[in-house]
């Protein structure tokens, strides 16, 4: 398997007629970890939803490609099978469908009919991933996200990430609602994915996640654009000084999308 490249060019996205993203440019390659930071209301989650194809978000301009293929032409499930993954901030709850059943469907969706993963192999994999994430074994038989605590939902997103092994993953505020112990466990799961064939875009407005997962590139979003990019040192400066210096530097008064 070769390295993949996700390219976002001049992306404009609207929701209910209101433009949220106003020309985002980003490129993520296999082997790279990127962090997108920024205060609330600057368009970070919109970026992740637009890449995955959330039904409410409308791309009005620009392109998204994965290894040259037009992502915007693909249905949501096609994007996923092409190698994209989104760890969601608010995962849906689905009654009556067990976590294990759902995960197995996701795995088999990538395999040919007649070549489905054996139940034993699947369970072994799931059990070992659940151990890494320190999840109770009974979570496999509970209904998908139903009655899960905030932390359990986030662990479950990472469990899916580890099971599916996408080429490029976007993790949308995977750290929100996690206590420090859970944060360590979740980070460990994500770090374990690190290899040259896996690229990751981590969206957060806290620096603290980046204490456990070191990004290669850091981007700051304001007003629906990436306004500053740098290396890990940028995240450290944001932690120490906040966002005001960037606003001053760029002459921005209100960083949120207007």
């Amino acid at each position: 398997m070769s390295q993949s490249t996700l390219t976002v060019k001049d992306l404009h996205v609207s929701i209910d007629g209101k433009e949220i993203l106003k020309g985002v440019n980003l490129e993520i390659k296999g082997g790279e970890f990127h962090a997108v930071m920024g205060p609330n209301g600057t368009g970070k989650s919109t970026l992740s939803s637009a890449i995955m194809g959330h039904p409410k978000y409308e791309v009005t301009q620009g392109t998204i490609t994965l290894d040259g293929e037009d992502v915007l032409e693909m249905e949501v499930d096609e994007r996923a099978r092409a190698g994209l993954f989104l760890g969601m901030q608010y995962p849906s709850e689905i009654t009556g469908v067990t976590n294990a059943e759902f995960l197995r469907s996701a795995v088999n969706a990538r395999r040919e009919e007649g070549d489905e993963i054996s139940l034993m192999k699947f369970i072994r994999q799931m059990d070992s991933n659940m151990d890494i994430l320190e999840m109770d074994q009974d979570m496999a038989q509970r209904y998908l996200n139903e009655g899960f605590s905030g932390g359990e939902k986030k662990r479950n997103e990472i469990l899916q990430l580890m099971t599916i092994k996408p080429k490029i993953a976007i993790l949308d505020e995977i750290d929100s609602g996690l206590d420090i112990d859970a944060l360590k466990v979740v980070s460990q799961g994500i770090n374990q994915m690190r290899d040259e064939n896996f690229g990751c875009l981590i969206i957060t407005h806290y620096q603290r996640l980046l204490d456990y997962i070191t990004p290669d590139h850091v981007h700051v979003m304001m007003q629906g654009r990436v306004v500053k990019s740098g290396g890990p040192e940028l995240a450290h400066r944001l932690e120490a000084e906040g966002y005001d210096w960037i606003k001053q530097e760029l002459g921005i008064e209100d960083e949120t999308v207007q």
Partner: protein
Amino acid sequence: MTETKWLVDESVIRDFSAANNEPEWLLNARLDAFNKAEDLPLPKPDKTKIDKWNFTQFGAHNVNSTPYASIADLPEKAKVVVGEENTAQNVYVQRNGVPSILNLSAELKEAGVIFTDFATAVKEHSDLVQKYFMTQVVKADEHKLTALHAALVNGGVFLYVPKNVEIKEPVQAVFIQDDKNAAIFNHVIVVAEANSSVTYVENYISTVETEQGVANIITEVIAGDNARVSYGAVDTLAENITVYVNRRGVTAPHAHIEWSLGSMNDGNIVSENVTNLIGDGSYADTKMVVVGSGKQSMNFTTKVVHFGKHTEGYILKHGVMKDEAKAIFNGIGKIEHGASKSNAEQESRILMLSEKARGDANPILLIDEDDVTAGHAASVGRVDPLQLYYLMSRGITKQEAERLVIHGFLAPVVNKLPIENVKKQLKGIIEGKVRQ
């Protein structure tokens, strides 16, 4: 008044009755009902207009099918529900109206259990059948369809469990319609005497399509003192068959009746399921799943009437509507004056998968007694696009995502069905109907 064109007349009934050597009481009951049928009104299921529906036009009242020689000869769909020949101990198979296979274990025969086709029952156990046939649970003159049923009964089974006999394995009846002309007028009587227990499961299977057909099905369950009856049904009749199905039970003190019903027919349906809790301390539990597709119009009334003190009635119904299917769920918990300390609970939920599907859930509590508890929950909604988005974002196709959501929606009922065999069958049949 719409003119009802009858395909049968008295002579058809007399000939059929004579050909089957029926006792005189039954012929008289048939003729009496037939005369009343013309003037009696149709039932009036809440919120569904059925006066243009076809309840009277069908190919033939009686088709001469050759009985299946053995379980190995059954159509595939039937084999699946009957299982391996050596495990199908207590089973009745009917081909159109014709009794085909009847197995009853020696042990049960010895214990005095009667399990036989309707025609044999009225000959060999005339007094018993006469005692129960449309006398105390369902009456012939309730409306046009009950009267038509009484006049035209052409199949069904009689199951009698004597006092203190507990039947461990399910007793099964499989009704196969493989002749497009065959009209189904099955009557099922289950009598469970005091302290007995039995699980009865029936399947309706069409293997042919028909231009117009009728199924008019009535079940009467009589549960004696402290008896336990678990009644399962999985209906899969073809598209152009109008189904009237009335499954009703009465309980003596401390008796239990549990219904596990899967309505997977492809045509229009009027379904009544009623339990009259007569005896003190008696109990009714109805669990039902429905999948509607195509242009089906369906009306399901589930009713538990509490007469006895300390009676408990539970209704749990979930339905999924695809395409342009339309379903009305009426849930009625009725507590009569004097039925103190009773409890009536119900939950009805409908999930609509398409813009054109329609659903309506009407929970009704009619309470004429102070010292009782009751509750209801109902919901009707469309599938959540964010749920589908979430599933699809993991690479699952839209079709598979819908399948998971439907399966999940019905699972809380299916997983609680008390009859393991019905649970297993339904999972497969739901899958098939959803993929249609």
